């Protein structure tokens, strides 16, 4: 009997403990640990010359203007490269949160480019975390500069180059993101017979945030089998990203002139450490064409 009494007293008191439990504690218990997409691995869709893992959200049309000036070490006569300017205009439309189509045109070799970019995996945190983001990029370019003799006029298909790229990125923390970009490039036409038609390159990139809206970026592409006929150098670039609402400004110092994968990964000849550095910038303006809801 005594045991029953003790037990019942204890159990009877239980609800009073529960009553005493504060409301905040109940909310904590009731709140579900949801899985969330890790947003903002990079500020924009470009790391520097190349792509970042980011895609624009559904219904956003992004207009990109990119410039690369001449070599800084070309001296005062060329105003340290500023007399020479290469430009690319790009229109990029996000069909949905993961899929972007784009068209661009570079003044360098009068090249048109088109690409499709698909974000396959998102980095997740919360209940079911996932460690990295994965985006695929497929691009085709057409060189239209008339740098040939009339009798050697190349066909349309001879002017084409294709790029396939996997972009793998992880936002380590709020201030540090890393990206790895294995890249495959196919040339329908190469400069000389000894040059390879297929190239493989490995890219590495990082973003280091120095304030909420400013970051320092670095990007390096190591080409495993470059053109034999060219004094090729691997592409290297550093830059500063400044983000202000719908705009992103990227100021860039790098050894490449081209702003498309096929160009800067395979045709860079500047020696960064000997001052063959091109100043450049990307300006991006995002317009929300369609509302998300």
């Amino acid at each position: 009997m005594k045991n029953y009494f003790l037990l019942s007293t204890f159990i009877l008191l239980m609800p009073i403990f529960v009553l005493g439990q504060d409301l905040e504690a109940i909310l904590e218990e009731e709140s579900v640990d949801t899985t969330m997409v890790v947003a903002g691995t990079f500020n924009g869709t470009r790391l520097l010359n190349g792509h970042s893992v980011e895609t624009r959200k559904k219904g956003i049309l992004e207009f990109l203007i990119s410039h690369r000036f001449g070599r800084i070490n070309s001296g005062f006569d060329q105003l340290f490269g500023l007399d020479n300017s290469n430009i690319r205009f790009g229109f990029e439309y996000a069909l949905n949160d993961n899929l972007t189509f784009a068209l661009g045109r570079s003044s360098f070799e009068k090249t048109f480019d088109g690409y499709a970019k698909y974000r396959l995996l998102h980095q997740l945190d919360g209940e079911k975390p996932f460690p990295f983001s994965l985006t695929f990029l497929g691009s085709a370019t057409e060189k239209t500069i008339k740098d040939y003799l009339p009798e050697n006029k190349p066909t349309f298909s001879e002017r084409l180059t294709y790029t396939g790229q996997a972009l793998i990125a992880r936002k380590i923390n709020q201030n540090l993101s890393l990206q790895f970009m294995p890249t495959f490039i196919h040339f329908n036409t190469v400069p000389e017979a000894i040059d390879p038609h297929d190239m493989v390159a490995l890219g590495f990139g990082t973003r280091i945030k120095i304030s909420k809206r400013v970051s320092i970026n670095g990007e390096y592409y190591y080409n495993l089998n470059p053109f034999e006929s060219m004094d090729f150098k691997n592409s290297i670039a550093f830059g500063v990203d400044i983000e202000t609402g719908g705009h992103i400004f990227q100021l860039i110092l790098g050894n490449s002139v081209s702003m498309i994968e096929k160009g800067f990964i395979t045709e860079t000849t500047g020696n960064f450490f000997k001052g063959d550095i091109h100043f450049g910038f990307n300006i991006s303006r995002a317009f929300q064409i369609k509302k998300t809801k």
Partner: protein
Amino acid sequence: MKEINIIVFALLFYNSVVAQDKFLTKEGYVSFFSHSLVEDIKADNNQVLSIIDTVTGKIAIQMLMRSFMFKKALMQEHFNENYVESYKYPKATFSGELLNFSGLSAANNETEIVGTLTVHGEVKEISTKVQVEKGADGITLKGNFNVDVADFKIKIPAIVSNNIAKTIKVTFELHHKPYK
């Protein structure tokens, strides 16, 4: 053995009575609205947790900042990354009391809600009018109030200062159900 039966029965009854003291929702609605000459910005959160203790009139509310949905996806990203810093301060919470809760009825359904609001790690005392609808199957709270962005140390850079209001209107509607 009879004693045990009586005790078990009494406990079940007692517990069910106790349980009726609390009302909870996990799908409460909170929105905020910023009006400026340049643009209007609105964001909705439909996953707000709120609990009322009907004995004391005490109330606790919490919501994830990342659950606020914007019309423009980029705005939502900037809201979380640059303004409220959701990675550092994931939740907004309110803890307070509905004054004269037991005295409220269908005819007299307006009262004050007072307490502390925590957003972006900053705590602020607020009090505002609230409409309380007590029904058989739940308790509904409705109301709105204004907060100053500066009170919560949310910095707005000069370049977008014309786009974002200094004072934000917060609207809430919480349908609580009995909590078991």
